[in-house]
């Protein structure tokens, strides 16, 4: 608009220069195409995961009925007379996850409340990165810790009235260590969420006579609920999907129990144990790996979608 007005006002019409490129840059188009192709790879990975799981899983269900898979009979897919009651290993996963929740979530939330509401800035600057670095410790080291430290510890302090102490392998020891493993995740994400609650809300609560604890539990935690719940779901889905700790410390005996003192087998441990053995391509054992993998994938995917929904639903938006 401005240029047209000035053109009308001045005696000499200005030379109009086109703002588009003088010549097309094909090289640049190729580069952008290549970059876009990189992005497509990530989609290909997802499609690949689904495709890799679906094919053998369909084959599996041609041989084993869904009813048999979702039954509570024994889980013995590698026996010569196999049976496929998947609830035995689902229960194993639930068992360790339950104990991980019992230990990890209160600890993680407590640590987050401490970091966000009580700790001085100096303490926080040291503690939070430390937690995050410790979260990067390889899982095989956590498994080693469970087997050679937590299990003997539990066996030493086991009270007599609870019956026999747990054996070398127990769901409880693995669960406690998984709990320890999810603490950094829960604490770090919850702390971020709590710090995003505006200070004015805290000050408002103090002005009304709230104590520090009341402000923390009735203002800050509810205000940051969506982030806190998302951190829980993320931690739980990490615990369900974790392999090495349960493989090393929880044993390999499929059992339908939530007893922490028992040796159990989780879905992940089944996949890892079976795959390390010599599995013939196309055998029913091979297909079982993929069926269990598909179930695990569906469970974690559902939890991830749930966490996204929860975050949307309970999000308080502050400006």
């Amino acid at each position, binding site marked *: 608009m401005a240029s047209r007005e000035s053109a009308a006002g001045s005696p000499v019409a200005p030379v109009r220069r086109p703002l588009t490129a003088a010549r097309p*840059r094909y090289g*640049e188009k190729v*580069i952008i195409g290549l*970059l*876009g*192709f*990189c*992005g*497509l*790879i*990530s*989609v290909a990975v*997802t499609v*690949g*995961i689904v*495709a*890799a799981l679906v094919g053998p899983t369909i084959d599996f269900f041609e041989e084993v009925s869904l009813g048999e898979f979702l039954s509570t009979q024994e889980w013995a897919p590698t026996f010569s007379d196999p049976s496929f009651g998947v609830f035995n290993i689902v229960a194993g996963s639930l068992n360790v996850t339950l104990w991980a929740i019992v230990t990890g979530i209160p600890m*993680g939330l*407590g640590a987050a409340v*401490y*970091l966000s509401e*009580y700790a001085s800035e100096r303490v926080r600057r040291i*503690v939070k990165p*430390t937690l995050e*670095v*410790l979260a*990067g*410790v*390889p*899982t*095989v*080291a956590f*498994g*080693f*810790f469970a*087997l*050679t*430290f937590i299990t003997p510890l539990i066996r030493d302090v086991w009270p007599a009235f609870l019956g026999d102490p747990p054996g070398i392998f127990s769901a409880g020891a693995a669960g406690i260590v998984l709990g*320890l493993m999810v*603490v950094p995740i829960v604490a770090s994400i919850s702390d971020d969420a709590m710090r995003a609650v505006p200070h004015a809300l805290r000050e408002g609560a103090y002005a009304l006579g709230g*104590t*520090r*604890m009341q402000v923390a539990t009735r203002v800050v935690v509810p205000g940051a609920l969506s982030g806190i719940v998302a951190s829980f779901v993320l931690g739980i889905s*990490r615990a*369900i*999907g*974790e*392999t*090495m700790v349960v*493989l090393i410390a929880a044993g390999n005996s499929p059992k339908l129990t939530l007893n922490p003192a028992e040796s159990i087998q989780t879905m*992940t441990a089944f*996949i*890892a144990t079976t*795959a*390390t053995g010599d599995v013939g391509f196309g055998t029913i054992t091979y297909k079982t790996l993929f069926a269990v993998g598909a179930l*695990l*994938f569906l469970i*974690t*995917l559902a939890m*991830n979608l749930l966490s996204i929904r929860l975050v949307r639903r309970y999000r308080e938006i502050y400006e």
Partner: protein
Amino acid sequence: MTTHASRTADATARAAGAATRERLGSQPAGDRVRGLLFQIVVFSAALIAIAGLIALIVQAAAKGWPRLNSDLLTNQPSSQAEEGGFQSAIFGTLLIMAGVIVTVVPLGIGTAIYLEEFADNTRWYNRLIEVNIQNLAAVPSIVYGILGLGIIVRGPLNLGFVAYAGSLTLSLLVLPTVILACRETLRAVPSSIREAALALGATRWQTTRRQVLPAAIPGMVTGVILALSRAIGETAPLLLVGATVFVTFNPDGPFEGSYTALPVAIFNYVARPQEEFRILAAAGIIVLLGVLLVMNSFAIWLRNRYATRW
């Protein structure tokens, strides 16, 4: 007169203040006790978590200390715990990580540049890519192992149980991490830099290549190193794509021969019931943690040294 009046007013005000403080200034005893208990509880939650995680490292260090010598790195794995070492595992891990770097760096950085600098995120396909990456980050590592087994080892790619199959599987595993970290650093480059370059007549790629990328490189390298330090400790997916638990010779190359990796060898030793093997495993864990410490410190140093503040 006036001073006397103001002094009286002062005294009244002080008395009123004292009365208010008496009523409102201190919390009821119950609240104070509850508050103190709560503070103790949350403090001990943080303390126990940190203590537990540090105990993990201290215990491995204490247990593996006697075996921590150069033999550990140069000896091959052995069924005799006294002679066992990690040589083939260390070579295997180096080979796998080289494959991961070659694969994940161009893929991850390319995707990040595309999504951050070129993609029009109102288009459905670009949003699809974003949602995808978010979901991929939450897939358990063992599922990537199954993907590797079904598609990379067998199936379409059919590489067989070779080291590069492990590299590719781990690359896909850390790809979302790399993309997210690189996008974050690209986003931190202020758009005024881009606008200035575009206003001077640079094309979008010239802007990206000569202005945005140089500013973002240190952050990207940091992100890549952190992702690699995650890949180096991964065990479960490798178990599915052929990292055999017991290999007494070094891998031949990325596309031939069997291989193993440091965490897999550690797992092999942990799984044996004899105490000597556990000591060996603990020593291996120290080596692994040492490597991770070096990588993490380097990443942090790099970030602090080269980070640009806008």
